[in-house]
Structure formats: C-alpha cells, structure tokens
C-alpha cells in the first residue's frame, strides 16, 4: 500500500471529509438538542456568540495545532506561549510604555520565535516533537512568571478601549424583559479567529504548500520520493503553529485584559481535543481546520450545556468533556475500521 501514493492520498482526503461530516452533524444535533431540552438560553444568538467570544483564542490555537498534527507532529507548547504572550503584552503596555502596535509585534515575535526554534529542532535535528514542545511549554510557563510574578489587570487606555470594542451583528439581537432591544455582538478576536480559519482552510485545500502538509503527514517516504522537501514542510508547520499561538495570545489578552501565569492553563490539551473531535488524526495526513473550528464549538457547547443544566459542580465539566472525547474517538475508530474493511 505504501507505494500507491496517489491512491493513499485520495483515500486520506475522503477520510478527512468523512470525519468532518460526523463532527458537523454531531455539533448541530447537540445544539438543537440543547435548544429543545434547555430552551430559551440557547435560542438567543448571543449564547452562541459568547462561545465564539470566549473561545476565539482557542480556535486560532486549534488551527495551528491541526496543521502540525496533519504533518504528523504535535505541539504542546501553545498554552504556555499564549500565557507568555499575554503576560509580556500586559507588562509591556503597563510598565514599559509600549503602544498597541508594539504589543502586537511583540506577540507575533514571541510566537514566531517559539515556532522557529521548535521547528528547527524537530525538522532538522529530528528530535521527537513531543519532547521539544514539552520543553517549549516548560520554558514558556517558567518565563511567564519570570516576566512578572503576580496576575494583574491592564490599565492602558487604548487597550481597554480595544477590549471593549463590540461589533454588533444585525438582526441577531433580542428584546429583553423591559422591552429594550439588545443587539448581539462579537469581539474583535472573533473576526481574527474566523480570518485565520478561512485563510488556513483555503491554503490547505488549494495551495501547493497546503497539499504538501497532507502528503508529508500521510506518508513521509512517498512524499520525499515525489520531490517534496519534507523537512521544510515540517519546519513550516511549526513556524505557522507558533505564529498562530502568538496571534492567539494577543486575542486571549484582548479578551481577558490581564496578564497571569495561570492564563490558558491546559489550553494545549483543549486544542488537541478540539482537533481530534474535528477529525484530525495524530498519525498525520488526515484533518481539516473547519473540523477543528467545529471541534472547539462542540467542546464548549457541551460545557455550556452541563453548566446550564445545573450540574454546577466543577467535576461534571471534566467528566462530560472526557465522555464526549471518548465517544468521538470510539466513533472515529469504528467508522475508520469499517471503511477499511469495506475497501478490502
């Protein structure tokens, strides 16, 4: 099977769309179920937009994660990078007299630096990505407390203004009990996140470099035989993932408006979980950022359902998230196994 590259590639593509379809269907079923069983809260468009507002950073991180996972790697440093970026931006704005643009450059710079170093170590020195990015996570988390120890809210005026900027979505608002019209809104971060998803999707599907990601992840040996520079592709995937982590860091910072060493705790695992729910496979070669986008939405819709169902105790969220992840994994594994049998 290994030498039938074109067939292999084609098969992986249909796997991608198959898993994507499952994800999207499950998300809509879940959301409609929530509307039926829990009623009004989920009917408001704002409930949906709030998920977007809260998770914009996660969406961006999940995009980068999917890219790395498609090439067959993994990056668990992203949560740490997000925390480091938000802390650095917070310190930069409040204590070092930076302006917003400098802060954005700083965020991108940090992300890019992590991507470059980790990508170099993984692609060219062939060290296991898990170990490299684990060290990256340790480094980012440690640096966050070295930059500043205590959490604090940013007072910088232009940032607060930017943070409170709300983009109204027409026709989606609702009339509240007093009879006033409350418009639905999204934050700037959501626009950035949607842009990132769209650009990544287009790049993965219709550009040469995008196809290389799938080829290298699906079967590295055949990709090299086809003349693809596998090392450069892996390097690039890590650079983009790092850059996205930087962008996500700033979006996260814009959403919370503070710096803290405990920010974005466990975000890397959420991103991996979202990517998996979205149909990206850790073995590489299969995946789609639209899926990851819906993965983030599904993951947080279930969290919202749990908390609004009155199961407020903290442990329920963990258990239901895990149960959902388990369900998805088993469904994926069964579907893939049946497909494999059918093809034989």
């Amino acid at each position, binding site marked *: 099977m290994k030498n039938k590259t074109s067939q292999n590639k084609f098969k992986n593509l249909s796997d991608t769309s198959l898993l994507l379809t499952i994800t999207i269907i499950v998300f809509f079923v879940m959301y409609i179920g929530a509307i039926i069983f829990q009623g009004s809260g989920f009917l408001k468009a704002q409930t949906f937009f709030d998920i977007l507002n809260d998770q914009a950073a996660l969406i961006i991180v999940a995009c980068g994660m999917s890219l790395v996972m498609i090439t067959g790697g*993994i990056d668990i440093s992203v949560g740490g990078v997000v925390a480091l970026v938000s802390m650095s931006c917070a310190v930069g704005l409040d204590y070092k007299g930076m302006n917003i643009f400098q802060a954005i450059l700083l965020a991108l710079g940090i992300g890019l630096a992590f991507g470059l170093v980790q990508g170099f*170590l993984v692609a*060219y*020195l*062939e*060290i*296991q990505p*898990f*170990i*490299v990015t*684990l*060290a*990256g*996570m*340790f*480094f980012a*988390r*440690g*640096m966050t*407390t*070295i930059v500043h*120890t205590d959490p604090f809210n940013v007072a910088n005026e232009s940032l607060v203004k930017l943070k409170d900027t709300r983009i109204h979505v027409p026709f989606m608002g609702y009339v509240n009990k007093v009879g006033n019209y409350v418009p639905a809104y999204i934050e700037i971060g959501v626009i950035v996140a949607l842009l990132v998803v769209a650009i990544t999707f287009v790049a993965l599907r219709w550009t040469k470099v995008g196809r290389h990601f799938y080829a290298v992840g699906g079967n590295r040996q055949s990709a090299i035989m086809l003349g693809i520079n596998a090392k450069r592709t892996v390097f690039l995937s890590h650079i983009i993932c790092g850059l996205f982590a930087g962008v996500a860091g700033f979006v996260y910072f814009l959403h919370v408006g503070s710096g803290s*060493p405990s920010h974005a705790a466990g975000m890397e*695992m959420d991103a*991996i*979980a979202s990517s*998996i729910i979205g149909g990206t*496979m*850790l*073995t590489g070669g299969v995946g789609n950022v639209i899926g990851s986008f819906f993965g983030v939405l599904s993951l947080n819709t279930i969290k919202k359902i749990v908390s609004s169902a009155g199961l407020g*105790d*903290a*442990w*329920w*969220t*963990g*258990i239901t*998230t*895990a*149960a959902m*992840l*388990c369900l998805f*994994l*088993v469904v994926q*594994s*069964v579907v893939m*196994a049946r497909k494999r049998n059918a093809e034989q």
Partner: protein
Amino acid sequence: MQNKKQIFIPLAALIVLALFNLIMDPSFFKITMGLNSEGYQVLSGPLITILDSGSELAILAIGMTLVTAASGGQDISVGAAVAIAGSVMLRVLCGTEASVSELKAPVIVAFLIACVVAMLFGAFNGILVAYFRIQPMIATLILFTAGRSIAAWINNNRLPNISNQAFTYYGGFIPGIPIPTPFIIAVACMIVIALVMKFTTLGLYTQSVGINEHSSKLNGLNPAVIKLISFVILGLCVAVVALIKVSRVSSINYSVIAKDIEMDAILAVALGGNALSGGKFNMAASILGAYVIQFLTTTLYKFKVRSDALPAYKAVVVILLVVLSAPIVRKKLSELAKKLKPAKKEVA
C-alpha cells in the same frame, strides 16, 4: 547495540550536574545523620532528598518505559490516575469522615483496592489503545481530562485528613530505619521489574511488538494483549506512587497532587535515550533519567530558583540534553572529531 550505549546519556548528565554542584558548593554532597521531628535517627542532606523525592518519578518511569516501548506512545493520564488512586485510598481509610485518627481499614487493604482501581483505569486506556487502535496520547487524553474530576467525585469533593502516625511511614521514615521509605519502595519496584525482565519474556515481547507489530503477530504473539499488559503494569506503578504521595501529606488535593508528573515521567523515558516511537528500551536508563530530573530540580532549588520559574531552567537543560544526544548532532560531532584528529597528528 544502542541499547547498551544509551545509558551513557543520563549518566553523563548526572556526572555533569554532580560536577557543577561540586564546584559551586561542595556541601551539596554532605550527608548527615540527625534526629528528625519524631526523634528518630535519619539521614539527611541534598543527596538523600534527591533519592527520596525522585522515587515517585522513578517508579512511574518503569511503567512509562513499558507503555512507550509496546505502544509507541505515551500515557499522559498518570498524574490524574494518581489522584484517583489516592482518592480511593483515602475513601477506604477515612470512610465518609473528613478527618480521622483511627484508620477505618488496614493500609494494605486500602492499597490493594487502589491497585485494583488504578489497574482498571490502566486497562481502560489499554483497551482504547490496543483494541480501538487510538493513538495512546489521545486515548489517555480522556482520563487526563476526567481523572481529577473523578478523584474529587469519589470523595464527594471533600479533602479527607488523616492524623495517624503509622500512615506517614510510607512517605517518610519507618522508626529505626534511617533511609527514606519512598526510596526503599522504589528500590523494591526496581528489583521486581528486574526479576520480571530476567525471568519472563515480557521484555522481549514488549520490544518485538514495539518494533514491528505485524511481524510479532505473524510470530504468534498477540500485540493487543501485550499493549494492554503494559498499561495495566503502569496502573500498578500509579497505585504505588499514590500511596507514597498521599502518605507524604496524609491528605490529598485533587488539583495539585502529582501535577505535571506525566510530563516528567515521559521526559525521564526520553532522557534515558529511549525512542518515544517505541521498540527497544533500556529500563535502567529510564530510571536514571528520572533521578537526573530530580537532581536538576533539587540543584535549582538549592540556588534559590522560585518554584514557578523552575520549568524555564529545566527546559533549557532538557533541550541541551536532547540536542546533544540527537543522532544527527552526534554524527556531525563525530565527523568534526574525525576532522580534528588528523590535524592533531600532523602537528605531532
């Protein structure tokens, strides 16, 4: 061949760290015999601290090495599993009371129940990996997410507290024995695994499944069962670690206990020079890797590095280690050495 050689990586790291300490502060190696708070003669000193607090990591490294070798992936749920096992232990020992001085059940009973529970969770991971063919890191992500919540749920979110002297022995000192008990437990585990490796085919089968699953199947092995066994053994290691961890503080904090220990355990396996993609392994190197990590941690604490800034320094050392031990870098270095050698001869 690489199997024999790879122990030099952690060994070299250990020697470098030891030399560094020797130069900076020779008192690092001082071991004193003194009375502890309970009035017994015990050993103390930084080296003893390393042996003591490195025990948990060393025990987990044993199981993690097997899982890595058999399945070609890592179990990231061990920290959460330790929380579950510890919680079960306390549930048995304390019943439903918040604070006890008289244990409700013998420690051995609690420990055995915790073992069974931990092995069941290990089997859950193992089944997902072996029979559903989910990548280990992803399969264990489930328990990683749910584990600490399950641990809190077992004890109804209470944090039971034990004020019983005898229970502290497992994480402290047994009266009359100056060596920390965790280290004794860790050595016992090492001896058991060494005997298992020597007298059973577990090691051989694990490696063959890790190297080539398909050909092991053709040779009559059942790869799924071997993978499952490796996860169950890791579950057993988890229960032992939970006993030590809970005994150290006589209580439990679900969100803090054994936090990030999975990362350190995987690191120990990697520092031991084992391929994280499975196959051949060297158990001794992994265990040594665990103590290297603890040595590094203790050294950094000695130099007054804040505990939350510690990971940054650890990361730098880890990257240096893995870069130096990367095959490509080593090849380049040996080429460089070859180039330098003839040059020297010419000079001579």
